[in-house]
């Protein structure tokens, strides 16, 4: 057992060496650097383009709105462009290092039907990024939404390569990845359960969110810990110019937001709350008046500009779901997340940007009843502390270096039951607590070679320690299940004892390199070919074998008996813009290989099981596909159409006779169409249409009888398919008073979900007919089997 401290010290040393090294790089050029902000709100413009006309080169702002360009001394014309904002052109004299922090104004397309966009709106072609999707909350709020509640995760399902197991299921599946393979970051803090109401809504209140960026591939070296994607969600920073607010009512929730400056242009805040009232719907049924279900969210952020070089951020989130079922048993169930992020942006020089961040994240649930005979209280949680130090070094006009370190500390408390009441039949039980630390160091460089080629090459090294204080089971043959026949009744091995580990004693550690490589070759100003390879490692797994993940699912770290998983992904893409960047087209193909994913023995007991490792079987998987995207970004009519052709397979020893089988969310064909149209200044309509192959289903290949029960004997796992899924949704947005100087601005939103009331199959199941038990029958369930209109109103000042 190697003490953790020695390993950590080694990383720190490595990191310091690299840091000093970059400072020694020679510099001849001067630097133009600064922040780009929205003139109305003071919010950072993330991903805005700065283009130097004379040099035909430029850069992009980072997630804090900062940019830095290295140029030979001289006078330059800078063009700043950003989607949804007016393009500005300005002269900058740079004979020495200068700071240039322009403020940009949102473009108002109603004033002019055809907005002349900046010439450099071809970032999708020129940037190194591929397999990346971005969506701002303004787009999400215009989309038709289920019950009129705009939702980030649901909207992301309209992007190519993103699916889920069905309407209302928790989480997303990105390029064949399980839902636990997405690193979901809210202001940098990891979210462990992103769902409200078992998955019908996500925990992200659209009024508090600025935008999100989803990396499906070509994942940069600064991110790690999940196999399939990074969803980086940014909360709004708060308006640093003036007080504004927004309140809205949808068919399911009420939201209120206030933001404004504490010190003009220096210190801003935003606070936002949302509460649902779905519970009232359940009360339409007079017999269930004691039942209730609702959720709420609180978001807050404050942003303080200490000096030209220093900025502080503090942000937080807290949300809960509450489910109560009345009657004598008084069953209650609550679950939710809480996060805190503190960040310090510091400019060591106008070439070296740093971000020091500390994040806290917690997910917990509790359920129980005061029933006199069976009273219990059951709690579980995962707590996570994360310290990160990231640097961007704008070395010269051709090289941008990023490097940093990260350490995560986990405290897993998978379940503790205590009995409630003196008469309760239950004893206490605690599933052993686990602790772990995940450390990572990375470096990557983005290099321009000539005018056509850009390379990004990076390396991440991560190391995971499952450590004490803990007590673990010891098994005969040193393994919890027989690896040769893991899914048989005889597969479980006996526990022969336990072993205790003291605080920080390493039980098991894993580590490895994660290369991240990307290349962009510009064919011409309007088209490029890109390629990427990335290896990802994931050290914690969500243990879940239900169709959709449930709030009681817990995370399990890699350890003595559970391996970390790895994924390798190759992708190649062609990017082309038409009509002066009005239309964007992309085609990407990817291939992804997974190793050591978790699967489960048949009939696995995964919750409250102190020996849960006995229920797990490792498996491999592969996913591959083609994603096409055609997008119109500007004009009165905007939107996109995307098509995905993809397969996802699993191969697990002991399941499906060791043959590969399609994963639960394998949907070979997936088409999404999203259209917005501004009719007149006051009216805008939105429509989304989706069409996809039905998800796989396991059919029985016979039936048998025991004691009057008739049971299906199931054949090939996921060997058949449900009917195709398709749905049309519409939205109408009406802004009665469009005067931009109005004090109060109201907006009506009408959403119609499932316009032609299709009964899309969520599942097909097989069972005895209730009225005639000797008959067997197939049943199809549609979760949202009718048209769902909703109306909402929002007012802002």
């Amino acid at each position: 057992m190697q003490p953790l401290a020695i390993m950590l010290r080694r990383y720190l040393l490595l990191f310091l060496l690299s840091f000093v090294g970059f400072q020694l790089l020679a510099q001849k050029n001067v630097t133009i650097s600064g922040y780009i902000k929205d003139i109305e709100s003071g919010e950072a413009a993330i991903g805005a383009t700065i283009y130097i006309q004379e040099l035909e080169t430029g850069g992009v702002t980072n997630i804090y709105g900062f940019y830095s360009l290295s140029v030979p001394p001289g006078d330059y014309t800078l063009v700043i462009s950003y989607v949804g904002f007016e393009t500005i052109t300005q002269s900058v004299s740079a004979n020495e290092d200068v700071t240039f922090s322009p403020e940009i104004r949102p473009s108002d397309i109603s004033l002019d039907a055809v907005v002349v966009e900046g010439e450099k709106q071809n970032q999708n072609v020129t940037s190194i990024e591929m397999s990346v999707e971005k969506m701002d909350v303004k787009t999400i709020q215009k989309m038709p939404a289920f019950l009129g509640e705009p939702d980030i995760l649901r909207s992301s399902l309209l992007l190519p390569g993103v699916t889920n197991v069905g309407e209302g299921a928790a989480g997303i599946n990105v390029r064949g990845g399980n839902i636990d393979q997405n690193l979901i970051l809210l202001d940098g803090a990891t979210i462990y359960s992103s769902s409200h109401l078992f998955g019908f809504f996500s925990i992200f209140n659209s009024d508090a969110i600025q935008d999100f960026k989803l990396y499906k591939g070509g994942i940069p070296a600064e991110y790690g810990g999940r196999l399939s994607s990074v969803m980086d969600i940014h909360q709004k920073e708060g308006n640093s110019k003036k007080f504004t607010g927004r309140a809205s009512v949808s068919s399911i929730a009420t939201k209120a937001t206030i933001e404004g400056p504490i010190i003009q242009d220096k210190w801003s805040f935003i606070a936002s709350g949302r509460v649902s009232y779905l519970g009232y719907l359940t009360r339409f049924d007079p017999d269930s008046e004691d039942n209730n279900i609702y959720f709420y969210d609180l978001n807050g952020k404050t942003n303080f500009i200490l000096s030209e070089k220093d900025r502080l951020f503090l942000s937080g989130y807290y949300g809960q779901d509450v489910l109560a079922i009345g009657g004598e048993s008084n069953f209650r169930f609550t679950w939710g997340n809480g996060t805190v992020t503190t960040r310090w942006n510091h400019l060591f020089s106008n070439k070296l940007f740093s971000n020091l961040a500390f994040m806290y994240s917690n997910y917990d649930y509790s359920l129980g009843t005061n029933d006199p005979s069976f009273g219990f209280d059951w709690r579980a949680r995962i707590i996570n502390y994360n310290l990160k130090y990231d640097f961007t070094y704008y070395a010269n006009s051709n090289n941008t270096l990023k490097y940093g370190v990260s350490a995560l500390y986990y405290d897993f408390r998978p379940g503790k039951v205590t009995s409630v009441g003196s008469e309760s039949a239950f004893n206490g039980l605690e599933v052993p607590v686990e602790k772990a630390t995940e450390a990572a160091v990375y470096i990557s460089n983005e290099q321009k070679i000539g005018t056509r080629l850009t390379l990004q090459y990076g390396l991440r090294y991560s190391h995971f320690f499952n450590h004490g204080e803990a007590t673990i089971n010891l098994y005969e043959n040193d393994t919890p299940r027989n690896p040769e026949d893991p899914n048989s009744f005889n597969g479980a091995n006996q526990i022969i004892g336990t072993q205790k580990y003291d605080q920080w004693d390493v039980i098991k550690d894993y580590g490895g390199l994660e290369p991240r490589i990307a290349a962009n070759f510009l064919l011409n100003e309007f088209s490029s070919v890109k390629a990427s390879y990335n290896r990802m490692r994931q050290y914690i797994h969500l243990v879940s074998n239900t169709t959709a993940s449930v709030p009681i699912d817990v995370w399990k770290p890699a350890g003595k008996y559970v391996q970390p998983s790895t994924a390798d992904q190759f992708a190649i893409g062609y990017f082309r813009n038409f009509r002066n960047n009005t239309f964007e087209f992309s085609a990407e193909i990817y291939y992804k290989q997974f190793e050591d994913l978790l699967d489960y023995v048949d009939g696995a007991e995964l919750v409250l099981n102190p020996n849960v490792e006995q229920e797990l079987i490792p498996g491999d998987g592969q996913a591959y596909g083609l994603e096409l995207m055609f997008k119109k970004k500007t004009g009165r009519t905007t939107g996109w159409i995307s098509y995905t052709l993809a397969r996802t397979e699993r191969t697990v020893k002991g399941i499906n006779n060791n043959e590969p089988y399609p994963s639960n969310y394998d949907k070979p064909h997936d088409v999404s169409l999203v259209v917005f149209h501004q009719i007149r200044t006051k009216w805008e309509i939105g429509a989304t249409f989706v069409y996809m192959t039905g998800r796989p289903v396991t059919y029985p290949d016979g039936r048998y009888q025991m004691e009057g029960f008739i049971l299906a004997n199931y054949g090939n796992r996921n060997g058949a398919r449900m009917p195709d899924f398709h749905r049309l949704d519409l939205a109408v947005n009406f802004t009665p008073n469009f005067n931009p100087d109005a004090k109060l601005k109201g907006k009506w939103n009408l959403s119609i979900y499932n316009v032609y009331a299709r009964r899309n199959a969520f599942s097909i199941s097989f069972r005895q007919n209730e009225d005639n038990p000797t008959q067997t029958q197939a049943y199809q369930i549609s979760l949202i089997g009718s048209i769902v209109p909703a109306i909402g109103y929002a007012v802002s000042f």
Partner: protein
Amino acid sequence: MKILKHIWPLLFVVMIGCEDAIDLDVPTGDTRVVVDALLLDVDSVHIVTLSLTSPYFEDGETPRLTGANVKVVSNTGDTVQFTESTAIPGDYIGEFKLVDGVQYNLDFTVPNGTRYLSYAEQLNRVSPIDSIYQSEEVEPAQGDFREEGYAVYIDTYEPEGQGDYYRWITFINGEQDINPFNQFTTDDRLVDGNPIIKMEHARERVPGDFVEVWQMSISERAYNFWNLFFTQLTNFGGPFDTPPAPVEGNIYNPTNENEQVLGFFGISRVSKASMVVVQLP
């Protein structure tokens, strides 16, 4: 997770879900041998039922497996020959008393000459049902979840020491209750050594109903079997279903381990209690 399976209908109603019976073509796999046998300590006549699988949508009883040579063999060297019932083909009847501490195996050969064996089963301890009683008042209907009526409860206790597994069967007016959501199996991890008070075994009962509860101590293997069996039966297509899977029992073909043999040869001690539901003022 049973609790969630009960929550799910609530959500389903809220979410304007709907369920349709549909017609489908499903494949038909190889015909398999099915064993249905539960030998109890209180009985001296035991029945082993052998049958076969049938295509999933073929209505009516599945075919019986007749003409087999059925024996129960003990590890003390005794063999009990079972004889096929003339009244009900496929039922094989044997007479003997189960003895504590003795392990029993099922051993049968079907007419085509294939021989099948079971893993060993034996009697385990079970506590008596201390009392059986009904709810003090008529319980109101609760929407789709339950109709009006009396509930029937038992009091019992779980003996000290982990490693006990239970299954309960309820008979209403002599008929086994086969509603999948009314089937109870458990291990003693959470209840070890505790009194178990007011455990509900029937609901929606009217005066005059005769309710009998069997409390059985089963083997770990039987517990795993019934647990998966009932989990599959309660998979109603909701979001919290577990993957459909073949249910592995304790019967195998010693010459072809890959042959899937269904069902279970079980041995159990049983405590029974019964009552007639009465009208309460």
